[in-house]
């Protein structure tokens, strides 16, 4: 039993390593090419550094840094293409007077980190690229040597890696092939991940910078949250004051008028009482609207999916609703998502002239900062050209989403289609 499962594990390892190897080889070959590029740029930088002593180098510093930034940018994209996860880039802008630019270059840590990466990659990238190609080829060659060694002339025999000049010499070649193959399977994927890690470590902004940016973002989103909260409170106060409160005053007033009418002539009081009843009814209606605007009761009763289904059904334009992997998210996020969809569909119905709308809601994991986000996407096939002018509701959506540290993206070229996407972090 143990033997067979051990066997299975080995097979599994070989299969996994084979697929890693197939992915890694082209990556490392490209890495070898960029490694030579890096060496050339490194030499250029050394020259610039030498010229600093005679002064001209200072003039060359900003353009050299721009070149370095561009080059590391291509490397970031190579790593991103390989791993599927982006390598964030954050540079202080190179602008202003020459002395200011020089100061930025000299003082900023990213310059040093980029140069460090350039050196490491320039010195190791080509070695790894050569091994990535050489080890598998060596294995194949050693395996094939028994088939062709005799074709070659005696004075220039095949090396596998020992010179093979007789059938006896071919005896160890299967073993040699196996060693090459094992080395390739074990090392090449490691090279790829090592090269990736190295780029990620040195080319991503230092932790400190990332944290500082994050603090700035969070400060802004907290301010937006406070602002959104404040304007919500004002809106609710206004709605209550102008709506329900006034209607109840009207009830009291109509009843007062009715009371006086009843004292004079009882029959004349009835229509006034009925008016008071109507006013009480509209007070209830206003209260219902305010309650709905604070937290739609349907969210409590049916959850987000049920609430969105109701919205889609109520939309005057045919609307399809797709929801994938939806789970319960915090109430505030659900309510924001509900309002985004409600507002977006209102816009679609009012302005787009669309024949069809689609609402798509999914939960996905975002990498930076790592957490689940609820993604709400509303698309329509209307005439496009939507903007965030005040009063279109789009500005309101953006504010509401920003309050959650979320992102809103609107794409609406003239002629359509229009797509609104909002990302709402779920806080976990």
């Amino acid at each position, binding site marked *: 039993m143990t033997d067979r499962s051990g066997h299975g594990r080995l097979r599994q390892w070989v299969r996994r390593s084979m697929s890693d190897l197939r992915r890694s080889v082209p990556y490392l070959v490209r890495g070898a090419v960029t490694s030579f590029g890096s060496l050339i740029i490194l030499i250029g930088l050394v020259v610039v550094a030498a010229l600093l002593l005679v002064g001209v180098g200072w003039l060359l510093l900003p353009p050299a840094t721009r070149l370095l930034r561009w080059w590391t940018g291509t490397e970031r994209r190579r790593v991103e293409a390989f791993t599927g996860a982006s390598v964030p880039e954050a540079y202080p802008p190179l602008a202003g007077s020459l002395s200011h630019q020089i100061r930025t270059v000299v003082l900023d840590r990213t310059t040093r980190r980029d140069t460090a990466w350039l050196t490491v990659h320039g010195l190791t990238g080509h070695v790894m690229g050569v091994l990535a190609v050489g080890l598998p080829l060596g294995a194949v060659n050693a395996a094939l040597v028994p088939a062709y060694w005799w074709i070659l002339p005696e004075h220039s025999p095949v090396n596998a890696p020992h010179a093979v000049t007789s059938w006896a010499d071919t005896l160890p070649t299967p073993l040699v092939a196996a060693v090459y193959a094992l080395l390739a399977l074990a090392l090449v994927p490691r090279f790829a991940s090592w090269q990736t890690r190295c780029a990620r470590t040195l080319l991503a902004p230092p932790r400190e910078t990332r944290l500082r940016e994050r603090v700035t973002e969070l400060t802004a989103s907290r301010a937006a949250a406070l602002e959104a909260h404040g304007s919500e409170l004002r809106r609710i106060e206004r709605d209550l004051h102008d709506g329900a409160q*006034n209607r109840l*005053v009207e009830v009291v*007033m109509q009843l007062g008028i009715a009371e006086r009418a009843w004292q004079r002539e009882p029959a004349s009081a009835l229509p006034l009482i009925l008016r008071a009843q109507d006013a009480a009814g509209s007070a209830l209606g206003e209260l219902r609207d305010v309650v709905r605007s604070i937290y739609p009761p349907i969210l409590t009763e049916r959850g987000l999916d049920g609430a969105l289904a109701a919205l889609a059904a109520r939309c005057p334009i045919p609307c399809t609703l797709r929801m994938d992997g939806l789970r319960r998210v915090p109430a505030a996020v659900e309510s924001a998502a509900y309002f985004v969809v409600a507002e977006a569909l209102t816009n679609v119905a009012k302005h787009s002239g669309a024949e069809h709308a689609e609402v798509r809601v999914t939960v996905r994991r975002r990498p930076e900062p790592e957490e689940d986000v609820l993604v709400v996407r509303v698309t329509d096939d209307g005439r496009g050209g939507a903007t965030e002018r005040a009063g279109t509701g789009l500005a309101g959506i953006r504010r509401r989403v920003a309050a959650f540290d979320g992102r809103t993206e609107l794409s609406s070229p003239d002629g359509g289609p229009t797509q609104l996407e909002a990302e709402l972090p779920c806080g976990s």
Partner: protein
Amino acid sequence: MRVVIAEDDVLLREGLVLLLNNEGIEVVAASDNADDFLAAVEELRPDAAVVDVRLPPSFSDEGLRAAVTARRRLPGMPVLVLSAYVEDSYAAELLADGAGGVGYLLKERVGKVAKFLDALHRVADGGTVMDPEVISQLMVRRRADDPMRTLTPREREVLELMAEGHGNRSIAELLVVSETAVSKHIRNIFVKLGLPPTDNGHRRVLAVLAHLRS
């Protein structure tokens, strides 16, 4: 009596016009904003004005400011201010000019028509009417060494009614006591609070309110 009213909610405005007309009070102008209200007051010189605190365009305290402006342009112009909630500092602004003829009531007081009409008449006659809510706001904020603490419960009742703008007779009726008893209570209150004795009118209310606000 001729009145001008300002109320932005159309149903409330119509209701108020109906209520006043039914009671034989002529509404000579009913506007939904402060500017029209001020123009009407200046042009028509009504016996009293009834105005909502919150009016367009900004829906903050335009109505209150319009009332103050109207009284600056026409000193002593009786104004009854209505509001969905009361704030004692607003009352102070209305009373600041020291002239009588000021009222400040919660909107829902119009439902008790007889009392509301009584208040409107008192304001039109130069009296002062404060909502009981304003007085209770003033009464709760008392310091520990306050002479108010030496008042008997009955004296406190009399003080509250006095602050709301009621005269001796009205207080006597509301508390079901004799007018002489009310006068005695009032004398005691003034002595205990260290206020100079004043006549029955608006100045007495002002003195009491000033003491409560101090």
